[in-house]
């Protein structure tokens, strides 16, 4: 075993060389963005894209933030993402609880209906989805986007939670039922605490996906005041496209929350990938 994976000095050097090369590929765009977002003017970006700024212009970030109304976009993205997390964790956990612990006639059919949602992407249903959202009067409202984005994340969430719950013994719940506890109490007092690790994964995946979503808001939102940050960035680009240093600052403002979230929870992200990787 060890002989297969152990490296001699020469091999180690070679492996390091390749890994460092790929590290450069990954970090090059991000590093360039950080460096050039701090330059005082466009000329310096053109002349010496790899040089340090002559003056460290941290106020580029303030300019981008104010100039593009990033504050409003940020708040919209936060509202959408947090609402999706609350709705998806609640709705998916109640469904998973009933499907796994209180199956009924037709529960297999219900499970199959969710299965269909895992495999057929919601983007393809753009036309009927638009008809439904329009007829409910939810076009161009945050509520409409929140409901559609939550619904699009339900299938994967239900899958993660049902498979987790199936692996947990039902003894505690049975004991509670013996004591006369009703499903509401069992769900709230026993099941929710039990599935907390899986709920955390679902919450994380939902938050990141909701924060990053571009297509669904693009379809349903018209008023710039409702835009989340992904659409807001497109607006910003129309205005500042030629001012590269400000563009880089704007892009970084958009990236920072996800990078921070990732560095805080990189282990959960990497595990969530293998669990939630059923659909992108």
């Amino acid at each position, binding site marked *: *075993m060890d*002989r*297969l*994976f152990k*490296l001699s000095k020469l091999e*180690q050097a070679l*492996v390091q060389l390749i*890994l460092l090369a*790929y590290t450069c*590929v*990954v970090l090059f765009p*991000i590093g*360039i*963005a950080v460096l050039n977002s701090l330059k005082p003017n466009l000329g310096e970006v053109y002349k010496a*894209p790899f040089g340090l700024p002559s003056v460290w212009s941290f106020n580029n970030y303030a300019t981008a933030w104010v100039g593009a109304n990033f504050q409003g976009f940020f708040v919209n993205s936060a509202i959408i993402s947090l609402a999706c997390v609350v*709705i998806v964790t609640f709705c*998916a956990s*109640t*469904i998973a609880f*009933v499907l796994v612990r209180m199956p009924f006639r037709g529960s297999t059919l219900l499970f199959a209906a969710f299965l*269909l*949602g895992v*495999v057929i992407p919601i*983007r*393809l*249903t*753009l*036309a*009927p989805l638009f*008809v*439904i959202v329009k007829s409910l009067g939810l076009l161009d409202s945050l509520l409409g986007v929140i*409901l559609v984005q*939550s*619904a699009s994340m339900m*299938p994967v969430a239900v*899958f993660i939670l049902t*498979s987790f719950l199936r692996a947990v013994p039902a003894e505690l719940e049975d004991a509670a039922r013996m004591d006369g506890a*009703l*499903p*509401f109490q069992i*769900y709230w007092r026993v099941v929710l605490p039990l599935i907390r690790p899986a709920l955390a994964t679902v919450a994380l995946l939902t938050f990141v996906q909701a924060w*990053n979503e*571009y297509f669904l808001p693009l379809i349903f939102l018209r008023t710039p005041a409702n835009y989340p940050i*992904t659409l807001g*960035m*497109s607006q910003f680009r129309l205005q500042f496209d030629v001012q*590269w240093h400000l*563009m880089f600052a704007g*892009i970084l403002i*958009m*990236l920072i929350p*996800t990078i921070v*979230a*990732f560095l805080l929870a*990189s282990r959960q992200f*990497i595990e969530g*990938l*293998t669990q939630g*990787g059923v659909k*992108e």
Partner: protein
Amino acid sequence: MALKYNQKANLQRIALLAPGVLLYGIFNFAPLLGLFWVSLVEWPGIGPMKFVGLDNFATLFGNAFYRDQLIKAFANNLIFFFIIIGSMLILGTAIALLLSFRSWGRNAYRIIFFLPYPLAGAAVAFLLEMVVRTRGPLNAMLKNFNIIEQPIAFLGDPNLALATLASFYSWHRMSFAIILILSAIVGVRVHLIEAAMLDGAKRWATLKAVVFPVLAPAFVLITVIVMVDVFNNADYTLILMGPEGGPVRSTDIMGTFLFRSAFGGSATSTSVNFGMAAAIGLFTALLILPAALFLALRNLRRKD
């Protein structure tokens, strides 16, 4: 009269199911079924709908204007897919293999390589577009090292734009391949490797005989997920090239074609029809159905 326990339990079960079933039913499942119905109407987004039967399909496959767009978008989508999956499987396997050795700092590398994955597709698109501009840093670097004399218009050249967008996708999603392949390598049963090594097999022979065969499931999974994704998701193209998939439709893929048919390519478009969009959506869903069914069956097996 007070309800019996069972009656109460049944009522509460319905109450527990209701929010999730309604949410998913209205905003995800109904649109799926609605594809069949909307594909039979003509509707520009406002005003009354007109029932036209199978006309949308007849136009899509029969009318040269639409058929040519469909063929072009599908062909581009295939090229896009093969560039992505090729780079992800080859580079992903190589990197995962190097990370599985006792290489220094392999945990740090793992985190660095994973960094692009959680970023928003929109942000990645904006960022990498800046990097590959003709006056941008990538061209500047290539010039510094005397690799090129004239800057390359990565996204402006119809011959390069699609491949450039594909490489954006690979940059963003590479860690997905790395992580899945790495966990397959790590999961190889130890005694098989030991047996092979005891037989005196060299490292490369051992890898070939014992490790590579177990990578097949990971390869299939990555291929299927990427296939489903790139045949419906056109974020990079929409953001950077617009719904017309420019330059000269060289980056047009199924997702942009679908979007264009519903919302038009530009403000002056007249031929918008949600029925056509539904027909294209249904056709694309059928195309990716084998891949989708594979994923569904895998999930069903996994739950046991």
